[in-house]
């Protein structure tokens, strides 16, 4: 009986529901979906996973596309999809308050995260100040890092470090590897052992996950390294294959509305709009890594080199 009710509900719902594929906080996606549904009456089906999995699903469904709106955690993935010609051009009126660096004709940031070191204050180690501190003997076998092939933001950090420091960056990764740093799945999976104290710090953690843990009372601290870090704007885009472009545009509008941006800020992300407040440091106050002097490193090369260094291939 339940199964039948379920099937009927789904058959009815799927007729006009909007499909959202999103990386990053599932609770935020759920709240945005609920707020949007309340406003427009259109139901949103959410598929939430890591950037790698979301992109894989998009690719697998190429013959039969399902997603209407995509929110990725990596700016590069949006650039890539635009080049493939998969995206619909759309400028939301609500994007006016979004700084130019966080929008293009095809996609716009939903919010922005920054990468940093997350350190367990009860771990008995001294507070790290810069990336290089994690390669010191004190942190021997005590560091985790998210898998850049799964986490878009983590990959952005690798690219950022390589762009800024070139060969020096790879020297750092080698030192970290020699110091026993392990790769531990996507973002939160790198954080969990640090929470329990199995490890002392995460190299390149996405900040919003950790702010959430701090709020829950976990004894960890988010540290933005003194030499600079990268911010990861999270691009929102509409797929050209979408059958519901009107609803998809309305969803982007909602996510960029003051109400939507408030939800983004509540999830400990920096809002994309400059006129919305947040309870955490904003990107203007963060020291960022210098821009690349020449062409940016290709994501594929960086990933392969990193995977080889850490023996994943």
């Amino acid at each position: 009986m339940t199964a039948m009710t379920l099937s009927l509900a789904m058959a009815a719902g799927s007729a006009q529901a909007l499909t959202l594929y999103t990386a990053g906080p599932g609770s935020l996606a759920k709240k945005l979906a609920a707020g949007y549904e309340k406003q427009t009456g259109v139901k949103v089906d959410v598929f939430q996973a890591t950037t790698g999995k979301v992109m894989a699903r998009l690719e697998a469904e190429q013959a039969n596309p399902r997603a209407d709106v995509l929110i990725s955690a990596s700016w590069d993935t949006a650039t890539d999809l635009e080049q493939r010609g998969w995206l619909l051009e759309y400028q939301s009126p609500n994007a006016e308050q979004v700084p130019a660096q966080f929008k293009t004709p095809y996609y716009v940031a939903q919010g922005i995260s920054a990468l940093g070191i997350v350190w367990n204050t009860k771990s008995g180690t001294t507070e790290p100040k810069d990336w290089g501190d994690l390669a010191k003997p004190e942190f021997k076998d005590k560091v985790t890092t998210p898998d850049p092939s799964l986490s878009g933001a983590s990959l952005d950090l690798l690219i950022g470090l390589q762009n800024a420091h070139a060969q020096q960056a790879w020297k750092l990764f080698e030192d970290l590897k020699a110091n026993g740093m392990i790769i531990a799945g996507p973002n939160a999976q790198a954080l969990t052992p640090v929470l329990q104290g199995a490890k002392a710090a995460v190299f390149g953690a996405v900040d919003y996950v950790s702010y959430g843990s701090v709020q829950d009372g976990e004894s960890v601290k988010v540290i933005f390294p003194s030499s600079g870090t990268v911010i990861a704007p999270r691009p929102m885009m509409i797929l050209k294959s979408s059958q519901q472009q009107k609803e998809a545009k309305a969803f982007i509008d909602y996510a960029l509305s003051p109400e939507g941006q408030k939800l983004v800020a509540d999830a400990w992300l920096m809002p994309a709009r400059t006129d919305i407040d947040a309870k955490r440091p904003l990107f203007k106050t963060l020291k960022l890594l210098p821009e690349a002097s020449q062409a940016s490193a290709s994501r594929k090369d960086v990933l392969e080199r990193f995977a080889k260094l850490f023996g994943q291939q």
Partner: protein
Amino acid sequence: MNRNAFLPGVTGIALLLLVAVPVAFVVLQAVFPHLDTGSYSAPFSTFTRVFAEPSLQALFATTLKVGLGVALCSALIGVPLGALRGLFALPGAVLWDVVFLIPFLIPPYIAALSWMLALQTNGYVQQLLPWLHLNDFLFSLPGMVAVMTLNVFPVVYFAVSRSMAASGSRLADVARIHGAGPWRAFIRITLPMALPAMASSLLLAFTLSIEEYGVPGALGSRSGILMLTTGIEQRLADWPIDMPGAAVLSLLLVAIALCAYSVQRAVLAGKNVESMTGKPADVTQKSLAGWTLPVMALFTVVAFIAVALPIVSTLVTAFSGTLSGGLTLSNFTLRHFGNLFAAHSDALGALSTSLSLALGTALIAGATGFLASWLVVARKIRGAALIDGLSLFPATLPGIVVGVGLILAWNRSFWPVTPYNTWGILLLSYCCLLLPYPVRYVSAALKQIGGNLDAAARVHGATAAQALRMILLPLVFPSLLASMMMVFAVASRELVTSLLLSPAGVQTVSVYVWRQFEQGSVGDGMAMASIAVLLSLTLMLIAFRLQQRQTS
């Protein structure tokens, strides 16, 4: 279609849809890498490519090592305990059976996550026993083998104890009367009698462990150890994807499983010493005498490690405010259970989705399995071998392969309608995976009934369908119901195909728990896990009782 062909027709179509279609597409995609563009070019080129990859050897070797390791360790735990339970009058024997049923009921991925929280540096165990360092052991191949063994060894325990109880002691007594010492009687009589059961249960342990995704998925990512299952998932679900590669690896995994399965069949053929007569065996179990205490201590230790520790770890996490707060009373909270019921939480949706899907699966797999075994055992129709083969084949199919097959089969533009991206695809995958349960249970029950009753009904003018409904169904109903409850319990927590196939907006219990771990809400995940384990425990115990009542 005439009336006589209706039931075989329906059963055949169901089996084709559930089993043959996904398998066929895995084979097709493996052979023709450009199938998705409708082209049959470059056949077999993926095999060459995948076999040339240097990582393949490691994948293959790890999978075999884990399978053999789990089989060996399960033997080390399961055979002695099973022998003691089968041959001696153990205090609280039935209670021990129930206790050792539990590890088999805790979904392996939940067990693995619990072990991680218990054993990693500064985990629960180290918080209590600071000198005990098991972190490096857990995140290694032996650690993965240990966690899987603790889940799987009951298979061996039950097979060995039942087989020894049924046949071992009486003949051994005869040997003792003729002058053999107790050890000699055990080695020469009891052990050989139990060998087929032992061998087949060890092979089952091997198959279960090479098919496992949750444990290597949870522990392997931190130790950098890939098995075939996790390797397939990576190719399929991480960007950039490699469908043909995933299909080839799937075939490789099925090949290993099929080998193990055929060895198992060969070992069992004609040597089944378990009595299927339904007559109560005259069991005379010896007293343990002075050994009672040590034996009880042994059972207690195993039960503590395999059952109590992972469950306690799950519960402690579910009731802990923060992970960094550790094991203190002030860290106690009900917040995580509250979160499950909070607004915008997917938890209740996930629970009702899982329960609805499990109910649907139990009904469909039960009906299909019942019809299939009836056609094969009682009606002995033409094509029985094919129906039998198709309905039992999924026993050798790893969940991940069924998932791959369903994606490859249904995510195509040429179908006018497709279950892909609806909850229907999950129903298809669960039904396929769990079909062998009702088939096995019902076949066994039908074999005990014999043909007389059916024939008598037919002589008195009943049609085949009437005889089926009014004579056979009531007789095998307890077995069918028990198997359906088993199906329900397993389906309500299935992980790997749910991860691969859940469409947008649909979450199952397993996906919910997995995603909470991915997102750092470990407590919420474990709160859901506790509810899921409690639920499947209750159901399985009911099924166990039904089954007991029928066989005794």
